[in-house]
């Protein structure tokens, strides 16, 4: 998460776990995801930036303790189980850390115009006028 265009291996694994479709992104798509996440982290207060970076490191390490591999080294099923366990942890700090990286992953993926279009979200400032001109805009793209 050090800069736009590159994602820490753990954070990339989080994105792929939270949004499985991310695995199909090309390099440009990943650059876009990374840039969005980097910008979001950079905009947070310094204390929160430190907390996010620390939690990502802890997430990577916690998988080693439980599964003998880093989070990024786990297969999809084990990553999902590991993240689900953290999401329901009895410790609030762990839950909010998980919520935080999950939120960053969702932002990185769904704030991209291509992702919004792919799920059929197609608003227009022209509103009803645009929809009546192109009624298929209401339909699903896939």
């Amino acid at each position: 998460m050090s800069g736009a265009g590159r994602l820490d291996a753990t954070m990339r694994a989080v994105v792929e776990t939270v949004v499985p479709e991310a695995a199909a992104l090309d390099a440009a798509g990943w650059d876009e995801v990374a840039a969005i996440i980097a910008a979001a982290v950079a905009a947070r207060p310094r204390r929160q930036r430190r907390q996010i970076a620390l939690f990502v490191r802890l997430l990577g390490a916690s998988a080693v303790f439980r599964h003998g591999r880093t989070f990024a080294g786990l297969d999809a099923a084990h990553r999902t189980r590991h993240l689900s366990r953290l999401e329901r942890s009895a410790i609030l700090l762990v839950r909010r850390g998980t919520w935080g990286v999950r939120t960053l992953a969702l932002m990185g993926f769904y704030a991209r115009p291509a992702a919004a279009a792919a799920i059929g979200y197609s608003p227009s400032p022209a509103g009803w006028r645009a929809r009546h001109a192109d009624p298929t805009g209401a339909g699903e793209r896939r």
Partner: protein
Amino acid sequence: MNELRYDVVIIGSGAGGGVAALELADLVRQGRRVLVVEQGARLADDEFTGDELGMAAALYADGGGFLTADGTMTLAFGQAYGGSTVVYTGVSLIAPRRVIERWNVPGLDFTDVERRSAKYLAQNEVHLLADSEINENNRLFVIGCERLGLPARQFPVNVRGCAGSSLCNLGCPNAAKLGTHRVQLPAAERAGVEVVTRAEALRLEDRAVVVRVHPASRKGAPSAWEPGDYRITAGVVVCAGGSIGTSALLLRSGLDRAVPRLGAGFTCHPAHILVAEHDRPLGNDVGFPKSYYLDRAEEDGYVLETCMYFPFTTAKNLSGFGAPHSALMRAFPRLQMILVLACDAAVPENRIAVDRAGRPVVHYRFTRDVVRSLVQATRTAAHIFFAAGARRVHAPSASPPLIERKASGRIDELVDERNFLAGAISVSAAHMMGGAAMGASSGNSVTDSWGRVHGIPWLRVADGSLFPDSVEINPYVTVMALADRAAEAVRADAGALLGA
């Protein structure tokens, strides 16, 4: 530091500051100088693009994701020329009589709030949308309510020439929403009130405000003033930076020594976004998003509102992750949405503070009553979704979160308080209230019923921080009514405060 002199300085330009600016424009006609200081930027009409992240960054504090101290809730409040009125949906309701009576503020009665509220309903051209402007997302809410015998009501709204972009919460791209940036502020400026944007109020001194003007950023016009620090002396300072902004400014100025209740009594209507999947596309990304509501505040402590949010906001508010989450997101055009809001009561532990650097810190814990209200509201919303024909419903406090139609008879069992795990599910709020509450004395409040800070005659408050408790409806009209009172008090006291 630059030194300037005005007669009146208003800090903030939202529902409170915008009204104060226009109501104090009379002083300009009498030869006084009135200044509005706004931390956010002034955007040109063509800068409202509807881009989710870009607009959130330009118009909200912390991009709309201001976190409470324990990180279990995000708070969304505007920071722009027009404040939160740029990003609210514009639904316009008068505070219920029972709320104003429960507030029990000496000198404040419902009739006065109602009269002043009516003035702003007229000024903001509030009306009901025509049936032809109601989209399918809203129609389904009405259908669901009707089938259950629940009284859905239509929201009066303050739009003129609404094109139905659905982008209200990212700033209307058609200049249709009549917030203070379209109504009160331009009128005040025409009357000679000055507005300086990108100007952050750092602290208050005796009859003075120290502000820092920031350089231009990606969106919005540069400030009319050069970047730098300014000390502005004034006969009257009116704080209208919103519940969090005003409370934090007064706290970092050390005023809690004079008014110890500063920061107390914060409420915000904590909310969940619920979604349900239908079999057919609804076209929910067109039309005015928030047209109907179900008011259960008095009986059960919650309100349901129709809503429509954007892809990332929706994704964040769905529980869980992975394949089930993705499947629901792929059904986006078939999603019906309902916002459930809890009417939280002011409690001692929920308050606004500042950290060592003077930044606002909001302490908020979900009380049993709030959790109970959110869960009950979720059950009602789930029943409405299914009654409207939904195939499955996503409820954050259900286990599992997805309730299939065949399980719709077990909603009350599946949606349960035990599943409400703070920090694991998304809760957000956009109705910041309290922190500088009205009341009888500094022993139980910060201001009197006219927004005069106890013991500090030159200092006034004119925003949602005045609320002694939750208002149980969308708050902006009540903010305007109270700001109207605060401005009237400034005019009445002008001779004594401003001199000849």
